[in-house]
């Protein structure tokens, strides 16, 4: 049976006193019955007695009836409450439909802000909040050989230590030896990244083959020609042929001379298998114990405790004296993986949150400005007996309906954006999304949370104006003036403090976003305009390595590099070819070398840090790095000749400030052979995040490396030259392959990709914020003009000129924006430090950027004030006076 609906007015009269009602009802009955009995001849006392007896158990009945009435009223109040909510929602929807543009713009504003915040949180969630996709992810740690992430000058050599000692500290150790393999294909060979891995690689990281099997115990015990390949390689080279298991493939290890050429594929990894590094295409079993880069803590043992125990065990095993400041350190695997991108993520999320607050303030401001229009409606409701709480509930419901709509739209759009553009994120940030691109999508739980918190936010922004409106409306209810249409009581409709506070908040937050965007813009500009020191255009590059099976020693590697260079040079399309390790952008970042001169070192001076490069003589020509003094490397500087180096200008002036660098002698810490400086070359731009280091170049024939980048200058588009370069390498040795082949400008782009991404995101946020703040200021000033029409009219009537009127409005605008700017500057000074590590060529408190943003905001504010000012000067005194 559905609950019955009551007419409220009737109810209001009836609910007065239920307990008394039951008594009254019974008394009436008894009186009537007694009167009837008296008519039948009983005396009054006897009649009353009989009536009472006939009635039965009156106390029980009274109790029962009262309980029933109470229960009825409880149920009634519940339905009344539900009715109110339903009614409020109906009224809210009706109000939105009455002013669709207002509702639309409110929902759109909040919706966009929530969508951006959802996406930003989604990215942060994927990297920082959600654990890495490893079992016991909270116990997986990276083992560092230095106390900090920065290079440690006097780190001892840890070679020769039997790392099985780590078993006494950790539950599982994960060891790997990174390697590059040439996969010899039917038509072309391919260089792929891989590793020799310990059993812990599979158990601790939860990685296992999807097809085939893992390595057996005996395969980890003695070298056997077996390999597990990645799903990606399986697809590229074998077209996902399931018969690959048990078949042999021809691969060559870059690291190991004894690496077998014919190996049996025993397994293919799962497509979702994810590791913090990219060396996953070919896995081979590691049969020796190595330093463990990763380990799993024992349950219950803290990271600090494990670190202390590790140091206590390792330190005595190191021969010679050890710098007392040195120690090995442990860091959570997730922290280690994300520490470089953390500032970007914080800036991203912070920007989104501030934009959300600005959007909220903007909506609250708009609601407040509507106060004048709503006041009449609310006063009527108050006059009809609605309590202030009831009216606030109504306004709050309106805000909730709008916010819920916006939050739903925002969550859907934000979730869709993540799903669509997810794969871009990893590339832009320079660190793959943990667990793969597919893991970026937000779960239903988080989306529900977004909708819920968005609604709460909307309610808060709806509540402020609601309180203010009702206070004003109820207070002035008796005057009746407002029902006539907004005349009189001009200053009372909304709290000026609230309205102004909202504007100041918007301006201040907008200022912060603009400053952030400005600083990142300056960073991009600084990176883009800092001379590379070499010419990256018209150069094609490819990473190569010489498999140690066929290039086991320095002589073979030297010959191999020469043969490759000759083959490339023989192609008429190539204008020059060179080899360097690492590439000029230091994609494989190495710890800086410490350069020592024959004047030192003093005990305190452990050498000057410099980035070491191994290059061939033509390198400076191909890269167009100017030779400033001395000479370039020559063919005669071969393995038999005395060792030579070339230093960059900055290293030269740092080491020999008052004399020529050419002819000086240097060596690198940890190396006893001295080398003479034969030349000085121009500086090249260091990686954006590296500590600034000058460069030192070694000659490849004297220090052959099996792993290097091949660089060739071409006449036309370097992209067209890719196949030419690949063919040339195949001519030199048809078992050699290359990885990451393409124009060198790819690396130029990559060097600033993360900064550009952050700059673009912050710019979008800042522009949206600026738009909202300007709209807010405009609305606020226009409202002031409307409210002060009478005052303006009187001033005009008594002879104020138009400039006085203009300044009246302008003063309000200038005051609001001025305070907003001051607060904004303060907040910016406090918060830009968070992105300091992402800045390049500009300080977090760069006065130029601050000044420019103040000017930009001031100018925008002026533009926003123009329309209200014009409106004020057009006030016609006669009309206004008559209107009253």
């Amino acid at each position, binding site marked *: *049976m559905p609950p*019955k609906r009551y007419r409220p007015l*009737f109810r209001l009269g009836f609910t007065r006193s239920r307990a008394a009602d039951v008594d009254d009802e019974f008394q*009436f*009955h008894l009186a009537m019955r007694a009167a009837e009995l008296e008519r039948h001849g009983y005396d009054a006392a006897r009649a009353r007695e009989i009536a009472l007896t006939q009635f*039965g158990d009156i106390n029980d009945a009274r109790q029962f*009836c009262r309980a*029933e009435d109470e229960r009825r009223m409880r149920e009634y109040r519940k339905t009344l409450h539900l009715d109110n909510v339903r009614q409020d929602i109906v009224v809210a929807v009706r109000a939105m439909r009455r002013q669709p543009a207002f509702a639309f713009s409110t929902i759109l504003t909040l919706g966009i802000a929530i969508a951006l915040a959802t996406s930003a949180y989604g990215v942060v969630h994927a990297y920082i909040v959600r654990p890495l996709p490893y079992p016991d992810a909270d116990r997986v740690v990276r083992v560092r050989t230095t106390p900090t992430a920065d290079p440690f000058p006097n780190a001892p050599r840890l070679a020769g230590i039997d790392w099985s000692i780590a078993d006494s500290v950790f539950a599982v150790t994960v060891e790997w030896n990174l390697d590059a393999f040439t996969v010899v294909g039917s038509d072309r060979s391919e260089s792929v990244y891989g590793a020799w891995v310990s059993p812990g690689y599979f158990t601790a990281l939860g990685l296992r083959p999807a097809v085939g099997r893992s390595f057996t115990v005996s395969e980890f015990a003695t070298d056997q020609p077996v390999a597990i390949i990645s799903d990606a390689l399986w697809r590229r080279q074998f077209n996902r042929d399931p018969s690959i298991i048990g078949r042999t493939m021809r691969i060559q290890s870059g690291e190991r001379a004894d690496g077998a050429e014919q190996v049996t594929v025993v397994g293919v990894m799962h497509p979702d298998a994810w590791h913090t590094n990219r060396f996953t295409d070919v896995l081979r079993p590691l049969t020796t114990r190595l330093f463990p880069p990763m380990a799993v803590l024992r349950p219950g043992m803290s990271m600090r405790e494990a670190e202390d125990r590790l140091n206590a065990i390792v330190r005595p095993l190191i021969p010679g004296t050890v710098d007392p400041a040195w120690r090995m350190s442990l860091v959570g695997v997730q922290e280690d993986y994300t520490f470089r991108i953390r500032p970007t993520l914080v800036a991203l999320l912070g920007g989104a949150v501030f934009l959300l607050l600005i959007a909220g303030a903007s909506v609250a401001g708009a609601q407040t400005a509507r106060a004048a229009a709503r006041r009449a409606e609310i006063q009527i409701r108050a006059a009809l007996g609605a309590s202030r709480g009831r009216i606030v509930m109504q306004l709050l419901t309106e805000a909730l309906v709008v916010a819920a709509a916006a939050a739903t739209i925002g969550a859907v759009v934000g979730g869709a954006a993540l799903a669509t553009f997810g794969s871009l994120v990893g590339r832009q940030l320079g660190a793959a999304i943990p667990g793969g691109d597919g893991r970026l999508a937000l779960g239903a739980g988080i989306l529900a949370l977004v909708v819920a918190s968005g609604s709460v936010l909307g309610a808060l922004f709806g509540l402020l104006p609601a309180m203010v409106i009702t206070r004003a409306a109820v207070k002035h209810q008796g005057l009746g003036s407002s029902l006539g249409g907004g005349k009189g009581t001009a200053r009372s409709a909304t709290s000026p403090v609230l309205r102004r506070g909202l504007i100041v908040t918007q301006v201040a937050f907008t200022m912060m976003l603009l400053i952030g965007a400005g600083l990142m813009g300056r960073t991009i500009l600084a990176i883009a305009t800092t001379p590379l020191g070499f010419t990256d255009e018209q150069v094609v590059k490819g990473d190569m390595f010489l498999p140690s099976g066929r290039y086991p020693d320095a002589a073979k590697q030297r010959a191999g590099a020469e043969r490759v260079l000759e083959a490339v040079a023989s192609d008429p399309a190539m204008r020059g070819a060179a080899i360097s390790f690492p590439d000029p952008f230091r994609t494989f970042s190495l710890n800086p070398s410490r350069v020592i001169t024959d004047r030192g070192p003093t005990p305190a001076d452990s050498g000057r840090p410099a980035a070491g490069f191994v290059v061939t003589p033509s390198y400076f020509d191909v890269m167009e790095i100017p030779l400033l003094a001395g000479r370039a490397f020559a063919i005669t500087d071969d393995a038999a000749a005395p060792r030579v180096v070339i230093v960059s200008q900055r290293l030269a002036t740092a080491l020999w400030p008052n004399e020529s660098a050419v002819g000086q002698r240097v060596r690198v810490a940890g190396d006893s052979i001295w080398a003479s400086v034969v030349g000085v070359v121009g500086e090249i731009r260091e990686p954006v995040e590296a500590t600034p280091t000058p460069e030192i170049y070694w000659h490849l024939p004297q220090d052959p490396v099996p792993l290097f980048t091949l660089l060739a200058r071409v006449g036309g588009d370097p992209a067209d030259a890719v196949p030419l370069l690949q063919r040339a390498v195949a001519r030199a040795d048809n078992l050699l392959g290359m990885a990451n082949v393409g124009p060198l400008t790819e690396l130029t782009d990559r060097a600033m990709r993360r900064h550009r991404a952050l700059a673009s995101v912050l710019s979008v946020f800042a522009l949206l914020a600026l738009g909202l703040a300007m709209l807010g200021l405009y609305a606020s000033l226009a409202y002031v003009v409307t409210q002060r029409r009478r005052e303006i009219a009187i001033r005009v009537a008594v002879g104020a000129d138009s400039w006085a009127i203009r300044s009246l409005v302008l003063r309000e605008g200038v005051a609001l924006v001025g305070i907003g700017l001051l607060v904004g500057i303060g907040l910016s000074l406090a918060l830009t430090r968070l992105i300091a590590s992402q800045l390049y060529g500009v300080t977090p408190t760069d006065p130029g950027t601050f000044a420019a943003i103040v000017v930009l905001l001031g100018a925008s504010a002026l533009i926003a004030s123009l329309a209200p000012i014009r409106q004020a000067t057009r006030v016609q005194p006669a009309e206004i006076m008559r209107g009253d």
Partner: protein
Amino acid sequence: MARDPHDLLYGSLDLLILRTLAWEAMHGYGISSFIRQRTAGVLEIVDAALYKCLHRLERQGFIEGEWGITDENRRAKFYKLTPAGRAALRAETNVWKQYVDAVHKVLEPT
């Protein structure tokens, strides 16, 4: 739902009240007198049970109470049937008739 032990028969007092109120709105005393007269005293209703039944029916939404003034100018609570009560009366009457028929068939020798 807790039934009053003084009920004549399960549900029959409900039915009597609803039927009585189908003619016109009445106060509790009126209902009590009416039923007694209609049944020529065969059904003697305990007043306490009647009122408990009235308040329960009101809570269930079948009847609606309203304070009014009697012909003798006294303040009394008048009950009237709600649309839900009218529907319930129809349904309950049918059930009751079927019940009576069934009992009749058992008692009457064929």
